């Protein structure tokens, strides 16, 4: 019975997400959700419900199926079935290659994630942060109903600086199941990863042929680092998913100027800032990269971009107010030290080990060849003279990496130890986000290549056969 309600919850996420996409201006009719758009709707629903649940938890209000069901009904009835006028959106590219070839990566992807769902369905929380941070907070939200208790405010429960989107989502799942079961973390993450795959294909679809998008998505999901983290219950994978979809949507908006896509990017980045503290870093990096790119190439769009990025940071305000009101310390670093030249100078010996340690982890074989994909994406865009895209993607990657180095620089934990604790995980967002951008960077060149290949096939077919 608990499984039935858990499945029902997943349907609610997709329905609420479809309504949210409609609010953001996505059109296309109900039929459009029969394809990859369903994945985008699901992740949008998880992001929207997660933000709401995390903010409400701060005032001790909990969300459950009881509240989510009417929200889904209201969104469906008033926003979806009403034939509201949708904003201009680009159509998916027509695929002129062999169908079996284009769909082969998706079959492999579905097989892997299907097996993952089966394989991790009984897994406990083994990783330290999995149970000591996320398991604890989710269980406390489920058992105690909100944050008005010492688990979220007392120094008996360190660390207290982690935002609450991820445990709030899991707590909704426990309420749906009627029990706390650690396996839910893994199951929920695998479903989110599956939805992410299809959401990414949907966001890429107007610019990137299905074969290339499918190959890159498969490379991302099948990477050992991705699969291992999916089964670890840590918040780094949901963070990477939200940030990757956010930056890819921003990159598409740079190309296409579709307002709903910008709004969708803001939704995902807003979810990211409430998922982990590093989410703010990655969202700020995206905002600076976007606004900087527009300042150079297209100042008319600065205002819209600024408003969207402002909305992302506004979502963080209640959480920051909660931290300030309860004087919650961050035992690992003080952000003020990042602007203190004396402190930075005194701890400059940490920069080298932090930078090389993080770079080693980005280049690690656990990510397969994803770093090479990022570099090839940037190189293709440069050769295609897509300077705006290169500037945005390059600036986001560089700022994100430098921001992470800064965090390890000002940390008061020995640098070797903090790299062992978290280095493998904190780089995940950079690698997955950068790789997700690669097909968009290479899209025009790939389309040219596909056209050249098609032309070659046509010529060969029409050439007279020698006897």
């Amino acid at each position: 019975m608990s499984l039935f309600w858990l499945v029902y919850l997943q349907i609610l996420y997709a329905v609420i997400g479809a309504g949210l996409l409609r609010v953001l201006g996505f059109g296309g009719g109900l039929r459009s959700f029969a394809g990859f758009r369903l994945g985008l709707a699901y992740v949008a629903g998880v992001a929207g419900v997660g933000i709401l649940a995390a903010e409400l938890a701060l005032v001790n209000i909990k969300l459950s199926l009881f509240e989510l069901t009417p929200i889904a009904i209201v969104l469906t009835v008033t926003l979806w079935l009403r034939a509201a006028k949708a904003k201009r959106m680009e159509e998916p590219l027509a695929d002129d290659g062999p169908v079996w070839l284009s769909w082969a990566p998706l079959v492999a992807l579905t097989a892997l994630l299907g097996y993952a769902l089966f394989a991790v369905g009984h897994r406990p929380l083994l990783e330290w942060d999995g149970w000591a941070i996320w398991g604890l907070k989710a269980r406390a939200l489920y058992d105690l109903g909100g944050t008005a208790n010492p688990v979220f405010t007392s120094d008996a429960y360190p660390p207290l600086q982690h935002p609450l989107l991820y445990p709030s989502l899991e707590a909704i799942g426990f309420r749906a199941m009627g029990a706390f079961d650690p396996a839910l973390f893994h199951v929920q993450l695998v479903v989110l990863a599956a939805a992410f795959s299809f959401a990414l294909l949907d966001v890429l679809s107007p610019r990137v042929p299905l074969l290339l998008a499918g190959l890159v998505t498969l490379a991302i999901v099948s990477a050992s680092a991705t699969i291992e983290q999916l089964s670890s219950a840590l918040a780094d994978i949901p963070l990477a998913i939200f940030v990757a979809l956010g930056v890819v949507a921003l990159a598409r908006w740079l190309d296409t100027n579709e307002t709903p896509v910008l709004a969708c990017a803001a939704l995902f980045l807003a979810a990211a800032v409430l998922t982990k503290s590093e989410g703010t870093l990655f969202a700020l990096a995206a905002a600076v990269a976007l606004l900087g790119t527009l300042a150079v190439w297209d100042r008319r769009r600065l205002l819209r971009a600024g408003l969207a990025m402002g909305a992302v940071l506004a979502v963080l305000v209640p959480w920051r107010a909660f931290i300030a009101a309860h004087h919650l310390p961050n035992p690992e670093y003080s952000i003020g030290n990042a602007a203190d030249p004396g402190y930075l100078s005194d701890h400059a010996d940490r920069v080298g080990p932090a930078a090389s340690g993080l770079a080693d982890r980005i280049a690690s074989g656990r990510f397969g060849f994803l770093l090479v994909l990022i570099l090839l994406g940037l190189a293709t865009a440069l050769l295609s003279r897509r300077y705006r895209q290169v500037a945005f993607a390059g600036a986001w990657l560089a700022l994100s990496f430098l921001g992470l180095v800064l965090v390890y620089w000002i940390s008061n934990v020995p640098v070797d130890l903090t790299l062992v604790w978290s280095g493998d995980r904190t780089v995940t967002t950079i690698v997955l986000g950068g790789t997700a951008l690669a097909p968009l960077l290479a899209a025009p060149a790939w389309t040219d290549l596909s056209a050249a290949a098609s032309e070659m096939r046509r010529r060969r077919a029409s050439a007279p056969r020698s006897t």
Partner: protein
Amino acid sequence: MTEARLRTARLAVAGLLAVTALASTLKTYPESWRFLHREHAQFAGDTAQDRLEEAAYANGIPIDAFNFFRAHLRRGDRYYVSAPSSASFTPGVDRSAALQTFGRYYLLPAIAVTTPGQATVVLSVGTDPKTLGIPFADDIQDGTNPFWVARVAQ
């Protein structure tokens, strides 16, 4: 670089990108599949209670002690974990901190406190709680195991 050469380079790099994505998948897909297979083989028979306890086994924490504690805690209890500091299985975390951290997770909805003076119950591993010098209403040891639950006299 001429336009034609630039185009050739562009197409070559785009093609290389697709080949690299395929190569990356060919390298990692079997590894990931095998990893999932191992995960399934290891945990397929676990019950919900096993899944709660596994975190203790993975970190060298005596789960028997925490099951004993849990059986004696009531909703609304504020407890203090008393345990001597020593090396633990987890890098950078001493044994006392590991026990307290696991207690915070496993003993919910009972609430942890940082000093014995704030507690309604003292949970002790390895040391008799009487050494804390606090008056207790009762003091229960788990047989001959070095685990005690001591309810503070109000």
